[in-house]
């Protein structure tokens, strides 16, 4: 089970609201490579993993993604707090505002609500870990794109932290895949998972 800790993993202190930045960054809450999809992907894949160490990695990364979900939500709420209507009406945030006001709703930057179609749970250690490796790289690219579009250092610092974490998670999932393959027959060149065919 889980227990909540009343703190962020990394500080978020944004002084200047920015509607345009919020309309971009929301994608890391509920977009295809966002933190909601990431946490649900890893925490659900755990149940069919054949190795306790791999379950540990998925549990701890999945739990950290929940903390990242909260960081992105904190960024969004600080970016949209006390925004005057004049700064909303001519910004791309207007389309989000009309449905959600300044609430934090998991959707992509294009306005598509979060969807579990963004994640894969194949029930196969090789397929799922390869999905996870790709997911971390896709999330890293999204953070790179956010950094290309946002100048304010108050926003960039937590985004840079989140980007770094994608790289660390990618490394740990690489370790998990190696653990899985090491436990397979050394002649299993194609890295298929034979556990269902025994």
């Amino acid at each position: 089970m889980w227990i909540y800790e009343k703190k962020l993993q990394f500080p978020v202190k944004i002084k200047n609201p920015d509607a345009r930045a919020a309309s971009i960054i929301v994608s890391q809450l509920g977009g295809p490579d966002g933190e909601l999809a990431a946490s649900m992907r890893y925490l659900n894949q755990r149940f069919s993993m054949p190795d306790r160490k791999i379950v540990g990695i998925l549990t701890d990364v999945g739990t950290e993604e929940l903390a990242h979900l909260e960081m992105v939500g904190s960024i969004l709420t600080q970016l949209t707090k006390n925004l005057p209507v004049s700064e909303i009406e001519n910004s791309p945030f207007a389309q989000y505002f009309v449905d959600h006001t300044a609430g934090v709703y998991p959707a992509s930057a294009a306005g598509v609500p979060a969807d579990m179609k963004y994640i894969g749970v194949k029930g196969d250690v090789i397929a799922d870990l390869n999905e996870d490796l790709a997911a971390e790289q896709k999330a890293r690219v999204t953070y790179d794109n956010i950094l290309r579009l946002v100048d304010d250092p108050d926003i960039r610092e937590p985004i840079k932290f989140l980007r770094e974490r994608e790289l660390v998670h990618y490394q740990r999932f690489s370790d998990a895949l190696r653990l899985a393959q090491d436990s397979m027959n050394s002649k299993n060149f194609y890295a298929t998972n034979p556990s269902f065919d025994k």
Partner: protein
Amino acid sequence: MMNMNCNGNSLLKRLQEVEFALYELTLYLDAYPESKDALMHYHSLLDARRALVAEYQAKHGPLTMYGNESTTSWDWASTPWPWEN
């Protein structure tokens, strides 16, 4: 490290009961923070929980990532996960 699952472990069952009571009290206190009775009850269960957690972790390994009591082995990921039967 003792290999055990959740069923039939009375220490775990007691911990689940105490923590469930603490959860209920927390929900109640969130809504009624002025209740002195609930706050007293919360504190008495908190002491019980602390002792149960220490005993459980010494016997069965970590309950959280901060509970790896051993300084010579990493037991967090290698002990059974709660859905193993």
